[in-house]
């Protein structure tokens, strides 16, 4: 009888082993960064299958929107350069471009995906960033007739711009858009609990059991997280910082985030982290809207955040001072023993 009991117990244990209490993690390297997908409450087989669907979609998106290799975007840029109409035969791409124009307008030009030429000039259109400060005259040439995303005109499916300085670079948009697509794939496969991290841009779907997903926020000058935060279902978090893609010349740091109005990387801010609760396009907004908050001068940041309806922000200025919104401050958990200079707004 004991033996029978044991057999039944082991069988039950085996069945429970197939149950849905586990987190399955898969990783891939896409968009020039690590993509990390954690899925809770699914069999490993199903989680692996859906993760691969997402990875395949991301690989496609990366190739399709690539800013400097041959892609749908580089083809558009070639047409703009030659001042000719470009026929976009993909409604999704038209929507993406229109979305970028709209975001340019709503951020008053602080998010400007038309500055690909500036990004290239600074050496960031390369897997390994260049190490040279560009010639000031070349920057001035571009800024004299500044490329503006609202100078991109779409009529029906035809795109054109009369400003040859425009070169579209969706580097500040693509990861957020990829998160949005990943969410659709997960929903289509009836997966409601997942955490998707594309190089630091994170979308939390559902929870892990009874607990919220929790993410650490990396310190821009140290290799550790200085804070953590629980993400409620549907929240997306994004950071713009000067510590992932940059070079140092004459002891000065130059990051890939370039002020579209001056043509130079900013030196007043180390990082800007924002959280966007679930709403239309929130995954995209968590990627895009961290740029204006990062790039704008200190005195304008809070006003801009309010105008853009960003209730959750955490900014580290160059002097180490932390600017945090009241809402973010309610949810943040500070890590480490180091004293922090925090101001709540």
């Amino acid at each position, binding site marked *: 009888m004991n033996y029978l009991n044991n057999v039944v117990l*082991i069988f*039950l*244990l*085996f069945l*429970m*082993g197939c*149950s849905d*209490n*586990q*987190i*399955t*993690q*898969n*990783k891939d390297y896409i968009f020039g960064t690590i993509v*990390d997908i*954690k899925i809770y409450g699914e069999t*490993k087989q199903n989680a692996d299958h859906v993760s691969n669907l997402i990875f395949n979609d991301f690989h496609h998106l990366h190739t399709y929107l690539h800013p400097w290799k041959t892609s749908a975007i580089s083809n558009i840029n070639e047409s703009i350069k030659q001042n000719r109409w470009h026929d976009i035969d993909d409604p999704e791409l038209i929507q993406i471009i229109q979305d970028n124009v709209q975001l340019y307008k709503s951020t008053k030009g602080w998010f400007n995906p038309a500055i690909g030429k500036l990004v290239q000039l600074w050496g960031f259109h390369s897997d390994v960033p260049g190490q040279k400060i560009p010639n000031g005259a070349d920057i001035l040439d571009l800024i004299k007739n500044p490329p503006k995303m609202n100078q991109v005109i779409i009529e029906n499916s035809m795109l054109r711009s009369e400003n040859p300085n425009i070169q579209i670079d969706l580097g500040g948009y693509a990861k957020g858009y990829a998160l949005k697509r990943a969410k659709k794939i997960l929903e289509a496969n009836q997966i409601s609990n997942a*955490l998707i*991290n594309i*190089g*630091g*841009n*994170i979308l939390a779907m559902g929870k*892990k*059991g009874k*607990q919220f*997903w*929790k*993410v*650490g*926020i*990396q310190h821009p000058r140290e290799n550790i*997280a200085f804070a*953590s935060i629980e993400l409620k279902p549907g929240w997306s*978090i*994004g*950071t713009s*910082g000067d*510590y*992932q893609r940059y070079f140092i010349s004459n002891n000065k740091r130059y990051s890939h985030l370039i002020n579209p109005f001056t043509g130079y990387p900013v030196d007043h801010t180390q990082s800007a*982290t924002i959280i966007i609760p679930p709403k239309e396009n929130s995954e995209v907004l968590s990627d895009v809207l961290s740029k204006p908050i990062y790039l704008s001068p200190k005195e304008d940041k809070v006003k801009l955040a309010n105008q853009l309806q960003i209730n959750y922000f955490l900014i580290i200025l160059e002097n180490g001072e932390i600017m945090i919104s009241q809402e973010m401050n309610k949810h943040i958990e500070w*890590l480490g023993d180091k004293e922090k200079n925090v101001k709540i707004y």
Partner: protein
Amino acid sequence: MSKFINSVKLGDVLTILFFMALVTLLFIKLINLPTGEFLEIETNNESTIFNLEHDIQKKFSGPLGLTEIIIHNKKARIKESPCNKKYCIHHGWINKINETIVCIPNEIRISIIGKNKPYDSTNY
């Protein structure tokens, strides 16, 4: 015997007492370690996390073959392993946060994680 006792000095007694206290303290600290809530199993480039609340019995493949891991009564252990020395099996049950069993030959690592695993992912 009395010669031995006579040769013991105050310093020797204090030293012995100090180390006894140290061992007792470490033992108390060890048994009072907080128990974990999850088991993280890492095999070649993959990591899977199981809730210790639910019993499981699963096999994971490594370069030598299958390692069998069980979770029972909120504890975890390696039950079977194709490695030679079987140190991983002799390690027995683990349930305290950060307790880890590593089977180097079969490249499998299991560790207990608390509710307060600092975070699930990093924003940067």
